[in-house]
């Protein structure tokens, strides 16, 4: 499916909140959207375009802003689609996709703890790979390797 | 479902046969291994020993890997100190930063001879260093036994690596070819001050300082204070270690393509 077709289908639903569809080699395109239209876009991707499979959510820290990249797969179309949205660094939050694709749950937890992106209405936003009470976000560019970190780990009795 | 999958044996409904099949398989294996089990009695038998490999193959009638299985093995390094040119490339290419260049006796008085010292506590045996070595003096051998009671003994000094070299263990024969379009060291002439640092530190002595004509100062213009020499790099001798680039005080040497 060409990026233009995706753009037409999504544009009808999202209007100006769709910022554009760029071609991306090996996929159906890279959909750039405004975070206010996130839920609607997700629903449209799943229901209208048949992207039932959310493979990955990657958070990227661009220092001045942050980016979330969603990778979707559609069995019926047999190709990938990338969604990406830019978030301001001081107010990085976006609607959670875990209501649409349950697989988003862990990916969003990881993006939250690694790149400090908050996912609104996430059912269970807590640490996944890092210990509980960890106060840093390791995949931010400001987190330098080779620096001693202060780490306080809470223990839990079960 | 693919055809092969449907053809997979469906177990029959006879419950006695059910337990009998795996037990028969185990018994067959038992009979086979009565003579010679497949295990290798490690401290006494060694995989890298070609004599032993033939023995196993004959005894159990099964392939034990390819013939040249140990030739490419990446184990402990061997260093030929005599041919080392102190180019630092091994230390540069080490992803784990486990190589440190230490001074060894035998250099000329002007610049000390430095050879790699490898900390096997950190080494990941990736082989980038031996791939990088332009002279082939740092290679990897088939030696893999490193255990020692002291952590400090995991650090192999150049002399110790030379001892490994002298044992004449089989060495990794693979030598990478240089990329065809390798970059060269280029000079940004206006920045150079002719300080000779690059030529002094070049491990292959491929940089020569050539005199350049001193320009005549125009009136009102002040000539830069410098030595009127410029480095010229002999590309065929250069090993592309980048020492000159890193010692250049004015950052006037850089990587680039001559084309």
């Amino acid at each position, binding site marked *: 499916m060409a990026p233009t077709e995706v753009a037409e289908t999504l544009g009808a639903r999202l209007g100006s909140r769709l910022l554009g569809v760029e071609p991306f080699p090996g996929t159906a395109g890279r959909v750039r959207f405004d975070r206010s239209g996130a839920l609607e876009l997700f629903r449209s991707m799943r229901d209208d375009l048949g992207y039932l499979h959310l493979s990955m959510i990657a958070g990227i820290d661009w220092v001045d802003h942050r980016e979330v990249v969603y990778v979707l797969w559609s069995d019926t179309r047999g190709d990938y689609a990338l969604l990406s949205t830019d978030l301001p660094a001081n107010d990085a939050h976006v609607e959670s996709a875990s209501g649409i694709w349950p697989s988003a749950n862990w990916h969003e937890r990881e993006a939250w703890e690694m790149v400090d992106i908050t996912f609104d209405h996430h059912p269970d936003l807590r640490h996944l790979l890092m210990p509980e009470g960890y106060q840093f976000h390791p995949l931010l560019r400001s987190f330098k390797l080779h620096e001693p970190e202060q780490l306080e780990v809470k223990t839990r009795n079960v | 479902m693919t055809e092969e999958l449907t053809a997979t044996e469906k177990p029959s409904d006879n419950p006695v046969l059910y337990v009998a099949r795996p*037990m028969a398989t185990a*018994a067959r*294996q*038992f009979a086979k*291994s009565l003579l010679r089990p497949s295990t290798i*009695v490690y401290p006494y038998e060694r995989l890298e020993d070609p004599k032993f490999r033939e023995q196993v193959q004959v005894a159990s009638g099964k392939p034990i890997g390819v013939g040249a299985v140990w030739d490419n093995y990446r184990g402990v390094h061997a260093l030929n100190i005599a041919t080392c040119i102190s180019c630092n490339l091994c230390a540069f290419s080490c992803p784990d930063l486990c190589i440190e260049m230490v001074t060894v006796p035998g250099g000329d008085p002007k610049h000390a001879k430095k050879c790699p010292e490898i900390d096997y506590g950190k080494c990941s045996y990736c082989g980038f260093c031996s791939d990088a070595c332009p002279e082939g003096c740092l290679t990897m051998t088939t030696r893999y036994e490193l255990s020692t009671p002291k952590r400090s003994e995991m650090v192999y000094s150049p002399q110790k690596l030379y001892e490994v070299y002298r044992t004449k263990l089989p060495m990794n024969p693979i030598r990478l070819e240089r990329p065809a379009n390798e970059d060269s060291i280029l000079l940004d002439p206006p920045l150079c001050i002719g300080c000779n640092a690059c030529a002094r530190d070049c491990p292959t002595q491929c940089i020569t300082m050539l005199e350049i004509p001193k320009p005549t100062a125009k009136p009102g213009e002040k000539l830069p204070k410098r030595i009127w020499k410029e480095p010229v790099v002999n590309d065929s001798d250069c090993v592309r270690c980048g020492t000159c680039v890193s010692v250049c005080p004015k950052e006037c040497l850089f990587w680039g393509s001559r084309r």
Partner: protein
Amino acid sequence: MSNVTLYSISYDLSHAVVFAVGSLAYGSWRAAIDSNAVVTTIAVLVFAVILLAASMLNTIVLIWYERKLLGRFMDRRGAMHVGYAGLLQNFADGLKLFRKHTFAPREADDLGFYFGPTAYMVSSMLIFGILPISSGWNSGALPLSLLLALVIFSFAPLFIFVSAWSSNNKYSLMGGMRSAAQMIAYEVPLLLAVVAVVLVAGSFDLSTIVYEQQNYWFWGPLVVALVVFVAAMLAEMERIPFDLPEAEAELVEGWNTEYGGMLFAFFMLADYLRALVGSILVVLLFLGGWTLPTWVPSAATSFPLAGIFWFMVKTYIVFGLFVWVRASLPRVRTDQLLRVGWNRMIPLALLSVFLAALLVSARCLPVFGCVPSLGG
């Protein structure tokens, strides 16, 4: 040699010692030392020590035997480094465990924690006092020795459960519960299978049961009972495929998760003691004990201690079968195990009792004496 018993040997031994000691003493001391009561007491002690040493030695050799066999089943060698072919490996392991510090978890109940393994070990060893090894080689003719052996054998779930509960660990507790449920479920078919043997042999005395097999071994007429007995015995011994109480995949090590050092060694040894007892019982009840078929040349049975030799050979072969099963079958699940126990094993065991009763009342047992492979 046939009228020499283990007890008579130890009695003679202690009598000689007491006589030698007594001859050095004077007067009333001499009479006190030389009395029958003292000799009997010492004889019992000597007997116990011999039994202890023999059974422990056998157990350790059994562990070695299993390791070697399993090794070959798995295409490897098993223990091979300490001693010839690794024979001393288990002694080395035992020494290591013996030297280890024994400790209990802080929250554990100390009394139960230490009592459990000890009692388990002791109860398993007790059985050896009852089992006849060769004609006359037992503690003496007990008319109900089979029953007594099985009673002692079935103490185990209690001790396992005590040690599991008192170690205050969730895995241990689950293992203990499974163990109790499993052993109780399989106790019933085990006993019913034994009833079939008793019906045919007409006695509860193990020696008599073996004598009854002079003409034909019981596995022929009682093949159903044999199957039930072996399956139930596997469950009682907690070996794969019925090793759920210590299923290491999900319960770490089951009821002995919290044990280390010598207490763990107790469990380990007692497990193999019970495995030895199980194999011995199979040999005694179904495979003719120390007797050999009549078509075997007499040279094979005429050398000294031939009875014990052939008895041990049979026992080790039976245990080898258990090892074979262990090497080739996966573990079953608790509910499946119990369902098989109550729904399949007990009807089968009842069937075997019925068949045995039929054979006895129809007087067709001597037929089996004509089949040479049965040992007639």
